[in-house]
Every structure is written in structure tokens, then in C-alpha cells.
């Protein structure tokens, strides 16, 4: 099977290419902004971290601080969140047999946002004792359960019904978020800006949390990658091939919700990344989840990092990243939806 081997080698090459592009993007983006720093100076700063700060004497003394404490945490957080959301998209699409499924279209992002807004509201009134990520996770899980319950008959659900119930639940949740905003009164700005999605003012602990959870998600997804391929035959056939669909579904849906919740609690609602990236990568590497998962993570990271750099350093004023991805991703969603309709009725 030369065709398979060829595309296998090509896929390894592509993965390497994406990884290189990501590292390059991180270095270049670290230099971009109000204070311009050349890529070589960024590298000097990075190398100096492992070298007790040696070799930085003939450089602007604020560069190391700007790179290490201001830009890099934000850049890494955006890259990790982008990659993680793309992988969650892959997981949801495979497990629900629907190429239009992602945390955003299923309403899970809204659920996490509702939970997080509630936590923010409580924090405004009750001091900061409520954990935003925990509330986001509970909101995400409850929403997932509600969406699946709405869509299923006798434990089975049709995939388009699932998107519909996702939309319905998300609509209710956004009304709920509106109510929370109303309750927040004068402090409403905190919630609104956070909801629109932003990577501004991220620190190294944000990087650590998102990285840890994303790695867990990535490993769980990769562990089940081949089972997810089999799953595309439908649950009945997959079970007859030895895949424990019920268990796998539970584990992956919970994992996906957890990753989504952490992403949302760090950066607000950022939609459509989980939809666009897997779709694009599927066109390049094919539907095999063993290839789709790592390449989607890298591509998602590059996309989000680039988008965030554009809004941070290129645009005259910072546009919330969630607004930017929705403006770009929404029309793309329409395009996929439309072309799939075409396939079905032609």
C-alpha cells in the first residue's frame, strides 16, 4: 500500500513543519508589539533563562521583562488554548459522528461561560472565594448532559438533533448570562470583557494550568484515537469490533468538557476554532484521528497565536479575540454547513 505509506511520511513531514512554524511564530510574536524586539534578541533572552541571565548586558534592560513576564505567558496561553480547543473539536466530532460538533456549537462553551460568570458575580459580592474554573467545569458538564438528554431517544441521538439542542440550550444560557450581567450592575464590565474572550494579562500560572489540562486531554484523545476511527462506523458496528462505546463516550465527553471549561475560564468564549481547524486538517491529512489529533493541536495553536498577535500588536486597538474568531469562524461554519447540504441533496 504505497499510497498509505506515502501519506504517512507526508504526515510526519507536515507535523514537523507545523511544529517548526509554531516555534517560529512564538519567537516572532514575542518581538511584536509596542516595544519592538528583533527575533534574535528574543532568542538571546530565551537562552539567557538557562544561563543565569548572562549575555544580556548590551540590550535594552526592559526587553527580558517584556518577553518573559508580559508577552510569553500570553502567547503560550493563547497557543495552548487554540490547540486544546481544536483537539476538543476533533474529539466531539468523532464521538458524536458530526463534523459540525464543537464546544461552541454544542453549547458547552456557553455552559462553561455561564458557570464562570456566576462565579465572577459571586466573587464580586462574596470576595474571591469561588473557583472560576470549577464553576466553568460544572457549567460545561451540566450543559453537556442537558444537550444530550434533549437530543436523545432511548439512549440514542441523531447528530443534527444534537446541534439543534445545543443551540437551544445555548440560547437559554445566554439569557442567563444576560441576567447575571444585569445583577452585576456597575461591575458588569468585568464580566462582559471576560466573556468576549481575551488573553490579555495572562501569567505563568495560566500557562501551567492550561498546559497541564491540555496535555491530559491530548493524551486521552490520542489513547482512544483508533477507537474513535472505528466509532465513525456507528456505535453498533463499533461495539461488534470490540470498542466499548458507552465507556469511551463518557470518558471523552467529560475530558472534552474539562478542557473546554479550563480554556473558557482562562480566556472567555472563543468559538469556532474547534470547528475550523479539524475541518481544514481533515482535508490535508484525512479523517484518521491518529493524525488529526496532533496536527490539529499544532494548527490550532498557530491560528490562535496569530489571531491574538494580530489583535494585540497589529490592529490599532485591541479587538477581543472571541469577537475576532467568531467574525471569521461564523461565515466559515455557514460555508461547511452549506456545502454539506449540497452533498446530501445533489
Amino acid at each position, binding site marked *: 500500500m504505497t499510497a498509505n505509506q506515502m501519506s504517512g511520511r507526508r504526515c510526519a513531514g507536515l507535523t514537523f513543519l507545523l511544529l517548526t512554524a509554531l516555534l517560529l511564530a512564538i519567537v516572532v510574536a514575542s518581538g511584536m508589539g509596542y516595544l519592538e524586539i528583533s527575533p534574535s534578541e528574543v532568542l538571546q533572552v530565551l537562552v539567557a533563562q538557562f544561563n543565569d541571565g548572562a549575555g544580556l548586558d548590551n540590550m535594552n534592560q526592559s526587553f527580558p521583562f517584556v518577553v518573559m513576564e508580559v508577552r510569553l505567558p500570553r502567547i503560550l496561553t493563547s497557543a495552548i488554548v487554540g490547540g486544546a480547543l481544536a483537539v476538543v473539536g476533533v474529539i466531539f466530532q468523532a464521538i458524536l459522528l458530526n463534523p459540525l460538533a464543537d464546544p461552541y456549537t454544542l453549547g458547552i462553551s456557553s455552559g462553561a461561560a455561564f458557570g464562570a460568570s456566576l462565579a465572577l458575580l459571586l466573587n464580586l459580592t462574596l470576595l474571591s472565594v469561588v473557583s472560576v474554573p470549577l464553576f466553568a467545569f460544572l457549567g460545561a458538564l451540566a450543559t453537556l448532559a442537558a444537550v444530550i438528554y434533549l437530543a436523545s431517544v432511548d439512549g440514542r441521538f441523531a447528530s443534527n438533533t444534537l446541534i439543534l439542542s445545543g443551540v437551544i440550550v445555548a440560547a437559554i444560557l445566554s439569557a442567563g448570562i444576560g441576567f447575571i450581567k444585569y445583577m452585576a450592575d456597575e461591575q458588569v464590565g468585568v464580566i462582559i470583557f471576560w466573556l468576549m474572550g481575551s488573553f490579555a494579562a495572562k501569567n505563568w500560572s495560566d500557562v501551567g494550568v492550561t498546559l497541564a489540562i491540555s496535555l491530559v486531554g491530548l493524551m486521552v484523545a490520542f489513547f482512544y484515537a483508533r477507537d474513535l*476511527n472505528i466509532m465513525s462506523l*456507528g456505535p453498533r*458496528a463499533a461495539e461488534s*469490533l470490540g470498542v466499548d462505546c458507552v465507556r469511551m463516550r463518557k470518558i471523552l465527553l467529560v475530558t472534552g468538557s474539562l478542557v473546554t471549561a479550563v480554556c473558557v475560564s482562562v480566556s472567555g468564549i472563543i468559538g469556532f476554532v474547534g470547528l475550523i481547524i479539524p475541518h481544514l486538517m*481533515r482535508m490535508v491529512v484525512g479523517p484518521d484521528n491518529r493524525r488529526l489529533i496532533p496536527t490539529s493541536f499544532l494548527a490550532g495553536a498557530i491560528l490562535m497565536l496569530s489571531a491574538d498577535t494580530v489583535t494585540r500588536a497589529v490592529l490599532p486597538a485591541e479587538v477581543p479575540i472571541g469577537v475576532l474568531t467568531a467574525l471569521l469562524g461564523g461565515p466559515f461554519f455557514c460555508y461547511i454547513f452549506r456545502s454539506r447540504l449540497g452533498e446530501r441533496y445533489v
Partner: protein
Amino acid sequence: MSAMSDALFDVRNVSFSYGEKDVLRDINLTFSPKKFYGLIGPNGSGKTTLLDLLIGNLEPASGSLSYKGRKISGYPRRELARELSLVPQDFSIQFSYTVLDVVLMGRHPYIPRFGTPSSHDLEVAQMAMAAIGIKGFENRFVTELSGGEKQRVVAARALAQETPVLILDEATSNLDICHTLEIFQVVQQRVRQKGDTVIAAIHDLNLAAAYCDEIIFLQEGRVFSAGLAEDVLTEKNIREVFGVENRVYYDEFSCHHQITFLYAAK
């Protein structure tokens, strides 16, 4: 008693219900190896549910169900997947896998979690595709195939699973007569030559009469009649269960019984 211990499947007092609705009631059956079994009955008589129970996708509400003397629920899934394969009736795939990818999925129970298909796996997949008449389809996308072509890909995938028991759930309902016969011939060959066992839910009674050694006739979740094809497929049984006036006669050209349907008598 020796016949009992030879049984492949042993179904004892099995019942099953979806919520309030009883789908199967007190089923008692034994399936012996090296036979072609046909499962017939009107829509909603419980054929698919019985097949799902046999393959371990469902667990009986009561009663016991064993395969080779061991409870089906006691088998690890992968081990069961090397014993039983299923050709389902409906197949809608959303992602553009190639035909070869899908047929190779039949080798899933033999490939370690992080492994890739061996040359033997590829060989088995190629042979299955040749047997089912889809050689040359390897690199076509399943999303671009017609319903009938998809159905044959699914059948090839089940053949590639190389299980001693093959379960077909109205596997040929989308196929034209030539491809239907092709699949039945391939499957019958597996019974005659390799000693496999086939259990097939079949809508077309003449197809059942032509290929099955034994027939299980279900009516409203109960076994109405079971035994040799010519004993079960009688004018009286068909009239009583399907409510169709009919004639059954021996056909000299095909050398098996033939049913002619006259009119719905209900």
C-alpha cells in the same frame, strides 16, 4: 446431551424490553456450528434485538445467553470481536475514509492499541474485498459511494474480521439482486468450506428458503417456529404470521422451496 455441549450459542429463557415495551419474551434457542441460520418475521418482531443480544451489544433482562459454554457478558470485548462479526443494516459514515481504511477496520480486534496493520492484515482485507467484488475500490472515498456500494464495503469489513460466526442484519436490503446473491454466495461458501456459522435476519423469504439450513420464525417477540427451512416455511405458518395468502412449492430449477405470495389476507 452431547448435542447441547456442541452448541455454539445457547439461549435460555431470554427476555428483553425497551422501557415498558417487551421486545423479546422467553426465547429458547440453540445454534450449532457450521450452519446457515435465517431469522425471519414481520417488522418489529424482535429480529434485530435478538441479533444484538447474540453479539453482546445488549444484555438480556432475564435468562441466560452463552457462547461456546461461556456467558456472553463474561467475554472481554476484543475477544468477542474475534469470534463474532456483524454486518449492520444501516451505514452512514460522515468522514471520508477510503474503502481500504474501512475494510481494515475489520482487523481492529487483532491490532494492538498503538500498532498499525501488518502485511497479513492488508492481505486479509484485500481478499475480503475480492470475495465481495469490490477489488479496485481501495482508494475510493466511502462518502462518495452509492448505498449499495457502501453496503458491500461493510460486508467486506465484516469478512476481514475473520470470525467463525458472522451475523447479518438485513445486510442486503439496499442491494440489487446480483449483489444480494453475491453476498449470500460468499457467506454460504464460508459455511460450507470453512465451517463458519452464519445467522442472518432476512426480509426476503425466498432468499431465506434458498440459502438457510435452519430458520427461526419470530412473531411479536416469541419464537413462532424453528427448525429446518422446509418445516418452518410452510403455507400455514406464513399465512398465520404475515397474514399473506401464499403457495409454497418445490422448484426444480433451483432445487429448493419457493414461495409465491398471492394477496394480503389481513
